Each structure stands twice: as structure tokens, then as C-alpha cells.
């Protein structure tokens, strides 16, 4: 515990202002309770601080402050307007346009949407499955059959073999061959 008078007197200003840590404050207070010389010194210091604090400041009138403000206003009107440094102005613009930070994400979203729409429009239709050989045959046969006179003479069934080979007769949509043919 530090209790020498010269060390205690170093602490008296802090003690008078309540600036000491609590433990130290108690130590100083305890010493002042035992040491009359240090107690007198503490009292004088407190008085000096109190008288300094109590030194009055002038209370100025409303007219004074009105004139004060008007003078300042007049003087600064002759000054160039203050501006933030360039790097701060750039930063301020960046902050004001903070929504631009979303642009990459927005752009990506828009681009994706465009591509999607474009892609959907351009997606080729699923090509129809190639016609079966049978269908082709039926088609071809139908075309030919339209011109075959034999169809007009179906009554003449002497040429059954020929008839059997007419795939048009075997196409489901045209009906089955009669039984026994």
C-alpha cells in the first residue's frame, strides 16, 4: 500500500475530482484522516478548483447572439462552399446508387429470363417419329390405287394373288381381308 505523503499529494487532484479508482480513493481518504498536513493540502486544492470552477462566464443577450450569427453568416457567404474530398464524393455516389450493386444479380436474372423465353420459343418441336414402313406402303399404295382400274373390277377375283399383295387391303384402316382369302 502506497502511503507516503509525497505520493499521496500526487493523487490529491484526482482525489478532489473523483477520478481515482475506488480502492485508491479509500487509501487516500484513510491517509488524509491520519495526516493533518496532507489534509490541509487537499483542502486548499479543492478550494482552488472550486474557485476556478465558479469563475463566472458572461451571459450575453439575444441581440448579441443575433448579431453573432449574422456576422458568421455574412463571412461564410463570401467563402467557397465546402466540398468533401473526391474519394468521399465517389463513395457517397456509390452509397446513393447502392441499388446498382444488385445489377449483376438483376442482370443475370433478366438475361436468364430472356434466354429462357428465347429458348422456349426456339426449342424445336419433337419431330414426328418416322413413318413405319407399313404406313409408307399404305400411303404409296393408296396413291397408286387411286389410279388402278383393277379396283373398279374387284368382281373379277381371278387375280386373288394380286389382291393379296395389295397392302392397301391389309391396312387396318381399310379393313381386313375377307376370310378365306
Amino acid at each position, binding site marked *: 500500500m502506497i502511503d507516503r505523503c509525497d505520493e499521496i499529494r500526487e493523487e490529491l*487532484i484526482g482525489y478532489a475530482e473523483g477520478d481515482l479508482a475506488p480502492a485508491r480513493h479509500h487509501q487516500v481518504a484513510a491517509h488524509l484522516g491520519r495526516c493533518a498536513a496532507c489534509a490541509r493540502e487537499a483542502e486548499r486544492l479543492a478550494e482552488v478548483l472550486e474557485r*476556478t470552477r465558479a469563475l463566472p*462566464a458572461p451571459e450575453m443577450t439575444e441581440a448579441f*447572439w443575433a448579431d453573432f450569427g449574422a456576422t458568421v453568416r455574412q463571412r*461564410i457567404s463570401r467563402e467557397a462552399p*465546402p466540398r468533401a474530398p473526391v474519394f468521399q464524393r465517389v463513395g457517397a455516389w456509390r452509397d446513393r446508387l447502392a441499388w446498382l450493386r444488385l445489377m449483376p444479380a438483376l442482370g443475370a436474372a433478366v438475361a436468364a429470363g430472356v434466354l429462357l423465353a428465347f429458348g422456349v420459343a426456339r426449342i424445336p418441336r419433337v419431330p414426328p417419329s418416322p413413318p413405319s414402313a407399313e404406313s409408307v406402303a399404305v400411303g404409296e399404295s393408296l396413291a397408286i390405287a387411286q389410279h388402278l382400274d383393277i379396283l373398279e373390277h374387284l368382281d373379277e377375283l381371278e387375280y386373288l394373288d394380286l389382291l393379296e399383295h395389295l397392302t392397301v387391303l391389309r391396312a387396318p384402316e381399310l379393313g381386313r381381308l375377307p376370310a378365306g382369302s
Partner: protein
Amino acid sequence: MAQTDFEVIRQVLAGDTEAFETLVRRYQQPIFRLTYRMTRNLEDARDLAQEAFVQAYRSLGNFQQRASFSTWLYRIAMNVSLNRLKAAGHESPEEVDAQVPDGQADALARVLQDERDRAVAVAIADLPPQQQATLTLRVHHGLSHREIAEVLGCAEGTAKANYFHAVRALQHKLGAFRDTRGGD
């Protein structure tokens, strides 16, 4: 809700120069009291306080916002005051304005109060400028040692040491004053 200092500053820097009046009205009294306590002269105090605001306006673009605006403004006001003391050769004022507190019916007490106030004012004015500045900022404006260091542009330890030296010097001077008057 009142705008913060930083909000007003942003407004001024954005081009609304009239917004600076908000800061003037907000700080004119403490800044004037500061320059008054440093010079003990009403006219000088007014001129220096106005100069502090003009310099603050001029340099507003350089305000870094690392410290509070008030600390920054105190620094400007203290610099103009110390420069004035330096230019005046730091002579003790011949006539120290000591305002008489209102409401004291006892004329003798008023005279004594005047005399004591004058003694304190002269003792403060007689201190070296840095000690005077430290004392004023601590006792009359309630700044911490750290804030005083920011205002004066020195280390916190230096600000603290200056303050302790100022108080001890004041104690010595006022003790001498008390002794010549036969004690209180």
C-alpha cells in the same frame, strides 16, 4: 428529432450551406465561453469565436469524422485563441473582465467576490498558454484528459501533466494572494 452533427455536415457538403447555421447556433455559446476564458476580453472573444466558425466552415470537407465535431471545433477555437495569445506576447491583461454575479445584495460581499474572481482570472491568465488551455477545457468545459489531448493535439499523458501543473501553479499564486490579504 434534432439532426446529429454528422447529418448536418453531410447536408452542408451536399450543397445546403445554410444548414451550417444549425451548427453555429448549437455551439456558439460554448465556443464563445472558451475564447472568452482564454482572452478575458469580450470583443476579442467574439471575434475569435466567429473566426473559429468560419475556419470550421472552410475546412468542413476535411473533417474526418474520426472524432466528434465538437472536439474538432474546440480544437479550431483553441488554436485561434492560442495564436492570439502568442501574437499578443502572452501578456497578462491589465484589465480583466470579471462579471459580477447577479442577485448579491451585500455590496461588500460583491466587492470581495469581484476581487477574488479577479485574482483567479489573473492567475489563470498568467499561466503558460498550454496550461491555461488545459485548465479551461477541464474545469470549465468538463472535457476528459483524452478529449483535451485530442483538442490540443498532444498525448493524453501530456494533457494530464499540463493540467496538474496548472492546478499546482494556481494554488501557489492564489495562496500567495491569500497570504497578502491576511488569509480568508
